């Protein structure tokens, strides 16, 4: 159930994965981007943890606290995108507690923010299949991993990786990997299935 506690659990799992894989995310980003995706998100992870140390009043304020932590600390494209996603969750969670609806809205806000759609080798290539699976109730770790893996053979047409064009093919998108962590932890706390 969507509560302050389950969100905090979800976020704690995500921030731990981010910090444990900070070097790996930087490495992935250094191949097709500017090498800072891990460092960017690690700054955000610390800020999220700090923001959730004292439990927020309710679900919307929890999402808002996460959004603000990300927006003010991450600094890169991923900060604007994850920040937008959690801001949208903040708004939508005032209307519904249906996590699938909330995720769907968040994804649409990200697409608008990034002027992007699935197939462009970004984190949206993880969001789209996972949100679709969530609608059907068949999210599994394999669905998530397959989505992350699918970015490998794509040619980037958005974000920094788009500058290297063809040369982006054959490498995982760093944002897809960090979104993979996000959904694995969401699955583990039982907020999607």
């Amino acid at each position, binding site marked *: 159930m969507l509560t302050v506690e389950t969100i905090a659990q979800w976020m704690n799992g995500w921030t731990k994965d981010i910090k444990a894989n900070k070097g790996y995310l930087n490495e992935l980003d250094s191949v097709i981007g500017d090498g800072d995706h891990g460092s960017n998100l690690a700054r955000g992870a610390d800020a999220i943890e700090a923001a959730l140390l004292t439990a927020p009043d309710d679900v919307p304020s929890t999402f808002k606290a996460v959004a603000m932590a990300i927006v*003010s600390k991450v600094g890169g*494209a991923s*900060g604007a995108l994850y920040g937008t996603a959690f801001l949208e969750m903040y708004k939508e969670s005032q209307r519904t507690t249906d996590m699938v609806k909330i995720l769907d809205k968040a994804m649409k806000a990200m697409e608008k*923010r990034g002027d992007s759609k699935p197939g462009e080798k970004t984190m949206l290539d993880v969001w789209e299949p996972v949100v679709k699976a969530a609608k059907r109730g068949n999210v599994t770790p394999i669905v998530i991993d397959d989505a992350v893996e699918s970015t490998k053979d794509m040619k980037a047409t958005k*974000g920094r990786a788009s500058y290297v064009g063809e040369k982006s093919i054959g490498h995982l998108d760093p944002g897809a990997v960090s979104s993979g962590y996000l959904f694995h932890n969401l699955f583990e706390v039982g907020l999607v299935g």
Partner: protein
Amino acid sequence: MTLGIVIVSHVAGLAAGVKTLVEQGAADVAITTAGGTDEGEIGTSVAKINAAIESNTADEVLAFYDLGSAKMNLSMAIEMSPKPVHLYDVALVEGAYTAGALLQAGVDLATVQEQLSQLKIK
């Protein structure tokens, strides 16, 4: 109604440098900048962009950025801002210089935008 310019870059020195260049041809145009993250690292900051928009003494601003991730943070700042902001997907340095020179010469927004449309590359 006065028009100003906001420069957003991942690098503080780059934003400041563009301002210096543009000012040469636009002595009376209000130009503010947002460069780097809050920690002074490479990146952009919604808070800094907000501050650049609000502290600009003009009633409306024309905003220019370097890379796509700056645009996303700029668009977040714009949504939060009460001041009208016009965002252009044009060459940063050349676009800002063009806008500055034209505003200094006293042309209207439509004419500035027409010139800027020739510098669209993003």
